[in-house]
C-alpha cells in the first residue's frame, strides 16, 4: 500500500461523521439522565460520538494514507429505478392491491438492467407477478387484497 489520498475513504468517513453527528444532535434533545438512571438520550449520544470520531479518523487516514479502493462505475439507472420500484410498492400496495403493485414493481425493476429488451421485460413481469401471487397470496395466505380500493372494486 502506498501513501496516497483515497476518495472512497473520505466519502465513507464523511458518511459516518454525518450520521453520527446527526444522532448526537438529535440525542441532545432527549433526557440524558444520570449514570444510575440513564435517560433515553445517553446511549445514542455516546455511540453517536464514537461513530463521528471513527468517521473523522477514517477521513484523516484517507487524506494521509488511504486504502486504495477501486470505486468503479455507478449504475445510476439501476439505482434510480430500484429505489423508485420499492417506494412505489410501499406507497401503493394498500391502495392498488397485490397484483397491480407487484406487476408495476417487477416491470420497473427489470428496467434496471441496461440491456433489457421489451419482450423480455414483459415476460419477466408476467411470470413474476403470477409466481408471487401464487406463492404469497394463494400459498401463504398473506392478507393483502389482490385488487385494491383505488381501483374502484
Amino acid at each position: 500500500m502506498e501513501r496516497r489520498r483515497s476518495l472512497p475513504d473520505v466519502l465513507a468517513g464523511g458518511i459516518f461523521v454525518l450520521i453520527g453527528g446527526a444522532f448526537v444532535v438529535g440525542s441532545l434533545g432527549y433526557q440524558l439522565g444520570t449514570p444510575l438512571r440513564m435517560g433515553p438520550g445517553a446511549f445514542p449520544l455516546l455511540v453517536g460520538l464514537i461513530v463521528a470520531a471513527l468517521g473523522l479518523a477514517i477521513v484523516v487516514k484517507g487524506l494521509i494514507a488511504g486504502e486504495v479502493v477501486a470505486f468503479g462505475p455507478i449504475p445510476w439507472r439501476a439505482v434510480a429505478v430500484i429505489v423508485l420500484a420499492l417506494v412505489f410498492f410501499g406507497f401503493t400496495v394498500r391502495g392498488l392491491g397485490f397484483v397491480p403493485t407487484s406487476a408495476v414493481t417487477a416491470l420497473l425493476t427489470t428496467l434496471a438492467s441496461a440491456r433489457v429488451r421489451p419482450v423480455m421485460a414483459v415476460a419477466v413481469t408476467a411470470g413474476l407477478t403470477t409466481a408471487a401471487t401464487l406463492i404469497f397470496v394463494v400459498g401463504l395466505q398473506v392478507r393483502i387484497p389482490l385488487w385494491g380500493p383505488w381501483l374502484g372494486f
Partner: protein
Amino acid sequence: MELLDNLALGFSTALLVQNVLYCFVGVLLGTLVGVLPGIGPTATVAMLLPITFSFEPVTALIMLAGIYYGAQYGGSTTAILINLPGESSAAVTALDGHEMARQGRAGAALAAAAIGSFIAGTVATVALAVAAPPLARVALQFGPAEYFSLVLLGLIVSIALARGTALKALAMIALGVLLGTIGQDLYTGTPRFVFDQRELYGGIDFVSVAVGMFGVAEILRNLENEQTRTAIVGKVKNLWPTREDRRRMVGPILRGTGLGAALGVLPGGGHVLASFTSYAVEKRVSKRRQEFGHGAIEGVAGPESANNAAAQTSFVPLLTLGLPAHPVMALMVGAFIVHGITPGPNVITDEPALFWGLIASMWIGNVLLVLLNLPLIGLWVRMLRIPYQVLFPMIILFAAIGTYSLGFNAFDVYAIAFFGILGYILIKCGCEPAPLLLGFVLGPLLEENLRRALIISRGDASVFLTRPISAVLLALTVAALVVAVLPAIRRRREVVFTEDD
C-alpha cells in the same frame, strides 16, 4: 447417557414428517441460492423469514438453518464448475476445484467437496451437541454486566475477521448500534429519532436492513458491469474419486473439520476464516506443495470440510448465549423472537425438543444434501443458465412483498431502499456490511444490559471490572481490538520502512 437421551429426543422431533419435509425444502433452497451467484443466504433467509411465521417454531428454525448450511454447500458447486464462488467462503474452493474441473476431474472435486462436507457436518453436529449444554449452564450465571461485556467482545471479535480495515469495520459496527437505537426507548418509552412517524416507533425492522444491505446493494454491485455469464460447463463424469484421491482426502477432511468446528464459533464469518485457514494449513503440511493452485484435491477437501463444520458450530453462540455469529444467525434471532422464544441459555431447558430437534435436523440435512447434490448435479449445472435479468427483479419483488407482510408497514419497504443505497455506497468505499447488521441486532442488547447493570450497581461503572467474568471478557475485548488494529500498524510501518529505503 444423557447425551444419547437428548439426541433421541432430537431425532424423534426432527424425523416428524413436516420437519423432514421443511428441512428438505430448506437445504434445497439453500443449495439453489448457494449455486446461483448473486443471491446469498442472508438475503434469502431475510426474504423467507415472513413465510415461516405460520409454521411451528421448530419447523421454521429447521428450515432456516437448512437454507444456511445448504448455501454453504451449494457455493462449492459453482466455484468448482465455473470458477465463480456462489458464497464468499467458497472462494478458496475455486482455486483448486476449478483447476481440477479444467483438467476433466470435476467429478472428483465435487465428490471430495460432498464427502468432506458430509463428514465435517456430522462431526460438527456432535461437537455442537456436546459443547452447547455446558456453555449454556455457564451462561445462565451471567448477569447484565457479563452480558454487556460478552456482547461487546462478540462485536469486536467480528471485526478481526472482516475484510478491509479495522477502522471501517469498527465504524460499521458502531453505526449499526446507533441505527438500532431508533424507536421507543426500552425503559422510558420515549420515541427516539422517529420524526413523529408512528410507523417508526417499533424501530427499523432488521429484515429491511438485511435485505437492503445484502440483497439490493449486491444487485447494484452486479449491475455495474453486466456481462453474460459464460456457463461453459463440461459434462461431469466419474463422480467417484480414485483410490489415490480417496487416500489424499482423508487427512485434509479431518484437519479441516477440526479447524472449522473450532473457528465457526467466532462471530462475524468464522466459516470464511475457517476455509482460508484450512487451505493454508493443507498447503503447509503437504508434500506436494507445488500442486496447490494446479488442481490439488487436498485444496478442495480441506476448505470444504472446514467451511461446513464452521457452518454447524456457528450455531453454538446463538443457541447458548443468544448471540448471533453471522448475519444469518442474526435473522434466526428474529425468528426465535417472533415465535416467542428468547434465544439464549434458557432455550435448552425450556424448549428441549426445539433445541435437540434443531441439532438433529442438521445431521438429517447433511444426509439430504449428499443425496441431493451428487445425483442431481446436472440439474444444478442447468440452474446456472438462468439469466440474471430474471433473477434480480425476482429478488427485489419478493423482498418487497416479504418485508411488507412482516407488519404491513410501508416504512419497512422504504427502509429497504434506504439501506440498499447506504449499503451500496459504503460497500463501494471498502466497508463490509456484516458488522453493521451484527451491530444493529446486538445494539439494543448492549444498551439494555449497560443500563440494567448500572441500575443494579447504583450507577457505579466499575461493576464491569470488579465482576471477574465481566473483567475477563473485557480484557479479551481489548486484546481482540489490539490484534485487529495491530496488523494495520505493522503494515503502515512496513510502508514507512520501504519508503525510507
